[in-house]
């Protein structure tokens, strides 16, 4: 193992790790937004919205994220949508993970006992009020852990944007493997950084989960 080389190149990886973190954070925010909208659509009273939600989930979970990214980044200009690689990466990954989050959020909401809705409606709350004051606060607690699983997958998923040349961790590893022919060393550095990001995120989510529980 070439420790000297690893010491020489690791600053490039640290810089790249920041890009991976930025990608992860922005993608999480967009994913949560899409997931919330998607869940609302899937549970709407209107058939049109329910269908849009179902198609969104089915299409985005049924095709590879890499292809979705390519359609957006390489195909976008053909329909007048010119994005730089980083923005395309965030939008592509965010909308993709949003489809998975839709199901997570919907799952947490339907897990809340029906009696809660009935009781809230009986005391005179509207449908929106019931959702806002009774169902969502309870469902939010249930969804932290499964959303954490989505976010864990999303962080590893950010590696895909290497394929559209965003200079993040995997792209940097790939570039240095090409120039040094030391794949194992480059894997160790970038792998360690991914593990740190994922471990820290996992701890954060576990903390949030503990905080959110009533008892």
């Amino acid at each position, binding site marked *: 193992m070439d420790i000297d080389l690893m010491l020489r190149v690791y600053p490039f990886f640290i810089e790249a790790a920041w890009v991976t973190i930025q990608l992860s954070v922005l993608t999480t925010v967009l994913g949560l937004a899409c997931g919330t909208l998607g869940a609302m659509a899937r549970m709407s009273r209107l058939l049109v919205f329910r269908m849009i939600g179902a198609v969104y989930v089915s299409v985005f979970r*049924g095709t590879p*994220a890499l*292809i979705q990214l390519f359609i957006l980044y390489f195909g976008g200009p053909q329909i007048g949508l010119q994005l730089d690689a980083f923005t395309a990466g965030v939008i592509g990954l965010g909308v993709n993970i949003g489809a998975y989050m839709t199901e997570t959020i919907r799952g947490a909401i339907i897990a809340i006992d029906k009696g809660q809705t009935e009781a809230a409606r009986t005391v005179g709350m509207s449908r929106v009020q019931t959702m806002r004051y009774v169902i969502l606060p309870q469902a939010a607690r249930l969804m932290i852990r499964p959303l954490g699983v989505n976010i864990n997958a999303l962080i590893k998923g950010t590696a895909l944007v290497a394929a559209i040349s965003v200079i993040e961790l995997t792209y940097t590893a790939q570039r240095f493997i090409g120039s040094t022919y030391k794949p194992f060393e480059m*894997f160790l550095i970038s792998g360690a950084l991914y593990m740190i990001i*994922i471990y820290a995120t996992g701890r954060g989510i576990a903390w949030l989960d503990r905080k959110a529980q009533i008892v």
Partner: protein
Amino acid sequence: MSLDFTVIPPFIGVILMGALWTIAITAASAVLSFFGGIVFAVVALYAPWVIRLPFRAFAWLFMGTPLLLQLFLIYFGLVQIGIDLPAFAAGVIGLGLHFAVYNSELIQTSILAVDKGQMEAARTIGLSRSQALRKVVIPQAVRDVIPPIGNNMIALLKDSALVSVIGVSELTLSAQLAIGRTYRPFEFYVLAAVVYYIINLGMEAVQRRIERRIKAAR
């Protein structure tokens, strides 16, 4: 530049060939990840610690890093130690090992959930520990874990697109080939997405059938 889907017909053959390779690589990786998952699960639960601990480290590393990075490691890393595998084989090993680790986690839980009485009964009638595992415990554990493994296999299909990056000429790379000739990325990537979606629907249908049969068998 506007959209023009009439560029597609001359490349239908190329795309279908790519789809066949995608199915082949998914099937080969699925088989590797299934049996690899069983072996990994047994190692993680029953091997002596000198084997178990390095294995835990390996599993931990594979679950905490992106598949794309692992594919680079396997494809270029094997060359570094003098093994020059064709891209297809490297792709199958990479996808297979990655999903074997995930399957192994499922199978471990499932093995532990098999009633202890099963092992005791098997030992009482004279089976050795490894016989009891192989013939009594593992078959039951595997049966229970088939539905979630099915979900992993459907994820594997979609992740198989990644091996285009190391040069396996499956569906994604075939689309890229057509794009190289026509400069029509939107049309061909959408076409590839449609083909993936169809294969995905097919796999979901198979999964539902298998689940029904398991339910009926129980």
